[in-house]
């Protein structure tokens, strides 16, 4: 087993374990902290794929900004295990079954996709994830979707300001 393999299995185990802990934790704050760990593990995977820019932006945006806002809300609402609404057993069971079905569909979809067949993962070698190539791709091949999504962000921001404003 090479170092990359070991790192891959370690990160995968970490990601899955933390993701399960997100669901299992009774305390919402613990859930958020486990979710941050999931993001770290996923960033680790990005680094294994040599997509360093994606890895660090994933950390800055998700772990650094969005999760902080989650924490804000949860801390201020003062949620705890007693206040948490308890669902029926059969509801939980139905959730698990439907979630499992969805996972199965996703996995089969990925396995059947023609883009994926007979391809191997570019560990440490691909360079599309480097910031230079990513920027070139975004601003040449994908410039229209890129700009449109930025307009979308702007409108979301304006909407948030309008909602947040007291009148």
């Amino acid at each position, binding site marked *: 087993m090479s*170092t990359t393999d070991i790192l891959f299995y370690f990160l995968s185990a970490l990601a899955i374990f933390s993701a399960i802990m997100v669901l299992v934790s009774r305390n919402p704050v613990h859930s958020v902290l486990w979710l941050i760990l999931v993001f770290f593990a996923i960033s680790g995977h990005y680094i294994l794929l040599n997509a*360093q820019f994606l890895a660090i932006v994933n950390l800055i945006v998700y772990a650094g900004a969005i999760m*902080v806002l989650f924490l*804000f809300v949860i*801390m201020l609402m003062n949620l705890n295990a007693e206040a948490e609404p308890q669902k029926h057993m059969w509801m939980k069971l139905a959730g698990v079954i439907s979630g499992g079905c969805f996972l199965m569909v996703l996995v089969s979809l990925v396995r059947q996709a023609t883009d994926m067949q007979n391809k191997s993962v570019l560990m440490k070698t691909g360079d599309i994830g*480097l910031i230079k190539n990513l920027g070139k791709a975004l601003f040449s091949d994908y410039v229209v979707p890129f700009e449109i999504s930025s307009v979308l962000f702007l409108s979301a921001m304006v909407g948030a300001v309008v909602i947040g404003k007291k009148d």
Partner: protein
Amino acid sequence: MTLLTIDWLLFTEKLVLIAIIVFASLGIALYTTFAERKVAAILQDRPGPNRAGPFGLFQPFADGLKLIMKEEIIPNTANKGLFILGPGLAMTAALMTCAVIPWSSHVTLFNRNIDLQVADINIGILYVFGVVSMGVYGIMIGGWASNNKFSLMAALRGASQAISYELAMGLALIAVLMISGSLSLKTIVDQQMQPGRLWNIAYQPLGFLIFFICAMAECNRTPFDLPEAENELNFGYHQEYSSMKLGFYLFSEYVNMIMSSAVMACLFFGGFDIPFLDEKTLAPNLAAVLGVAALLTKIVIFIFVFMWIRWTIPRFRYDQLMNLGWKKLIPLALLNMLLTGAFILWKQG
């Protein structure tokens, strides 16, 4: 000597380098606390600590010993695991920045070229940003786990302040990156060292000013030390902490200060460049040592300015802080970015 396809010599070399940098940073931070008290004393026209050792030089050790000897108190209602995790995270996030800072060029020891930088990754400055945004968790987790309303309020203040000023900081940074065209700190420093090229401060004076203000806010230094405003929040987010856990929080502030000074020196003041001297004419090892000395000098000057400002300017009110961040610094940074972009386009013709 390869096992698991790891170059163990490189591994050891980096490990030694990391140990040296971490311990040096902690040592400097130790004496920064002393310098803080001395500078405060000078600015307030009093002698300052002068009992322990000559000129009070052993004062930081006495302070550290005092903190260690204090009783460790964990409040009954606190969330124990997170209460302990908080200061650890604050310290880790503060120290992690040093991985990408180029402390100097390379030295040649035992026929090996050793770079005095732990990792020259091509997203260096973004890495610094990622680590800075992680630093918020130390404050937030500690403040929440204390189960104290004052701590919680202070933690939320600290986090919202950090997020607000990160934006302006990032925008100021983009202008620098437009000039240098690289995210690697080493490349940015190397460019500034080229003959005939000035330091980035000459091209980005406004950007530096914005960056400096934001760095001060990120380190929670006065006039931006709202999370520790005693008259509103008793003692801030580390109210329930005692002994060395409190020490970790106080200490991480100083480590943060050193690291942000180092980043500013690299981005705007040529890093380990010695002004008016072509390092290539010197022997490599001598140049490296002088480079470290130059960078440390710049860091010390920055730290002094930090302290000078702390003991001169009173604290902002919270609404003033937010106004400054969102309504003044961000538009200014955007303007700076636009001007820089227009200038670069004009130069290209």
